[in-house]
């Protein structure tokens, strides 16, 4: 297939044709649905918490659940994930403790990253989930380097880099793709083309015929797949994962999908997005499509979904409750982890701060609101 054609397994919208990719049993398919559905619930809750002023910021992945879970299911346990801020679904698929997520959103004392970063910038070492940063694209080079490291050590671990259509314009996309290809490193580059980089539409991001076509520049295979078709995404990723393991080098996968929500809790798409575009994509909602397909295969019932919903909502509620009632990090932790050990320079700055607090009392939290 050329990198401008598009791979699909399921029909759009209302039918249930297409066979499940080899190796996927009924249980697998239900797990995939569960993670997609869970993500939707979590995102709705996250957005609400932000609207209620309980957390400062949230990034939903409405509409991109298939694009993510199809890939997540093709990963192996030892693989390494280099995520962007918009792929929380994969953590849910990997059964991460929800407290990790909400503690991070609050930046409280129990946050495993010690409240250092704004919401959605997780690091979850237990599941091979690397630390997210805001600068777009930087993780792409990291993924290439880690894949090279696995090669050097002779370990079968693939690196999965996640980024958006906007991310393809970054310096690191160019560098990371190029280095990985020259090295034939076991790396899978997941470009979620959700049509927008905040307000910049994909056609202003690049004049290329597709984002997958960018693979040609690096001499690696580029695959374009229907990103709202979880099974097609899985198939493309599985193949790429096998290629990586077999020494065939990296693959670029473009999942064609749509950002069905705002860029983040601070964004209002009505300024730049036509309602019709949104409407046309809503008909292709990946959860609706997969539900219908599963139903056709007798793997879904309303009752199952209702029970699932109840269970997941309770899990979310418990984690929110726990995170919200956990206190903020202690002031002195501000100086930890800059270096392996706190150097004298920072010890001194810490002492001065604590001394001031002893003399003049706590420092007032004056807040601040995030614009994007």
């Amino acid at each position, binding site marked *: 297939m050329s990198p401008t054609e598009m791979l699909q397994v399921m029909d759009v919208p209302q039918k249930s044709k297409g066979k499940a990719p080899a190796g996927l049993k009924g249980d697998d398919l239900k797990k995939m649905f569960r993670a997609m559905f869970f993500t939707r619930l979590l995102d709705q809750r996250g957005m609400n918490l932000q609207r209620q002023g309980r957390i400062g910021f949230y990034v939903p992945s409405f509409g991109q659940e298939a694009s993510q879970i199809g890939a997540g299911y093709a990963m192996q346990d030892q693989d390494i994930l280099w995520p962007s801020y918009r792929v929380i679904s994969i953590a849910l698929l990997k059964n991460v403790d929800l407290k990790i997520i909400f503690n991070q959103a609050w930046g409280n004392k129990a946050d495993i990253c*010690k409240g250092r970063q704004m919401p959605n910038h997780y690091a979850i070492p237990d599941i091979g989930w690397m630390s997210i940063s805001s600068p777009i694209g930087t993780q792409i080079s990291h993924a290439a380097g880690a894949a090279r490291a696995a090669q050097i050590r002779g370990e079968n671990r693939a690196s999965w880099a996640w980024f958006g259509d906007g991310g393809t314009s970054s310096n690191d996309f160019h560098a990371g793709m190029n280095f990985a290809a020259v090295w034939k490193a076991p790396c899978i580059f997941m470009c979620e083309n959700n049509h927008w980089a905040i*307000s910049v539409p994909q056609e202003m991001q690049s004049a290329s015929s597709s984002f997958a076509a960018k693979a040609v520049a690096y001499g690696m295979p580029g695959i374009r797949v229907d990103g709202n078709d979880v099974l097609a995404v899985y198939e493309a990723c599985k193949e790429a994962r096998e290629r990586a393991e077999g020494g065939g080098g990296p693959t670029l996968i473009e999942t064609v999908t749509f950002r069905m929500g705002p860029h983040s809790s601070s964004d209002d798409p009505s300024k730049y997005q036509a309602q019709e575009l949104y409407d046309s994509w809503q008909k292709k909602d990946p959860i609706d499509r997969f539900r219908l397909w599963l139903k056709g295969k007798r793997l879904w019932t309303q009752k199952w979904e209702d029970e699932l919903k109840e269970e997941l909502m309770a899990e979310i509620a418990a984690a929110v409750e726990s995170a919200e009632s956990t206190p903020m990090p202690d002031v002195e932790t501000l100086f930890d982890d800059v270096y392996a050990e706190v150097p004298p320079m920072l010890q001194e700055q810490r002492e001065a*701060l604590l001394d001031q607090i002893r003399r003049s009392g706590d420092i007032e939290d004056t807040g601040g609101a995030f614009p994007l």
Partner: protein
Amino acid sequence: MPQMTMLDALNDALHIAMEKDDDVVMLGEDIGKKGGVFGTTAGLHEKFGEMRVMDTPLSECGIIGTAVGMAIYGLRPVPEIQFQDFIFPGFDQIVSEMAKMRYRSGGHFTCPMVVRTPSGGGIRGGHYHSQSGEAYFAHTPGLRVVMPSTPREAKGLMLSAIFCDDPVIFLEPKALYRHGKEEVEEGFFTIDMDKARIAREGKDVTVVTWGAMTPICQDAATEVAEKGIDVEIVDMRSMLPWDAETVLDSVRKTGRCIAVQEAPRTCSFASEIAATVAEKAVDSLEAPVGRVSGFDTPFPYALEHVYKPDKKRVTNAIEYVASYE
């Protein structure tokens, strides 16, 4: 005179500059229909069209690099970097190209351009939406580095910057975007980037500051005034080239000096102020030169309010140098 926030004032300045000169063009991420993530470029795309107000691909390297090409061609581009923290992918273009173009070509080619970018904390943005990078730029000969502290200052300095023939890094203190209003003249006017501003006259302690720390220092000055300490505040406006004379004159008068900034301390512009005082006004000094600054750590999320100097930290420092014997 209309009352304006700093956002209004900047937006007004951009409108005026584009009306005045067709060579003024803007480019950046989300500056078009969306009007910028803070709204600073609101209305420009509608009014001046997409040839002069360009939404770009997500590449700061490309935004600054193509703007350099436009400037050499003869335009006056005003690129926006969405957050100062995201300027680093384009840092090479700034340091190697924009800053050195005039020098290396013996004056034959120049880069009259203004890189606008929101700087500093105040929005709970953590590591990557809060940093104050002025020292990186102020250590780069060939650049002008400007940061306003009030709405009127913002408008006058922006108009100076756009029509100046040197490349300018214009740091917008995002904490002040909506921090109260001020009367601002209508129409075109400029403020001299080369002169620091005495934001408050006083005789006991000189407080040197810039950008978003200015109102905090003013609050601190009001507070210590009640204790009989008369503070003089120097608002730097520019950090390169910078107005040492105004600082030194003030210190020679007061004999005591602190520099206040949000940035990390080591190799910062506050260090430069203190070093210059130690070199040129040491004989007038009656106390150590204090630096109130961000800590030498990355900018944190949950503890942002602890990281950023507040009124208490500034008053403590003023009182310390004021009472030093």
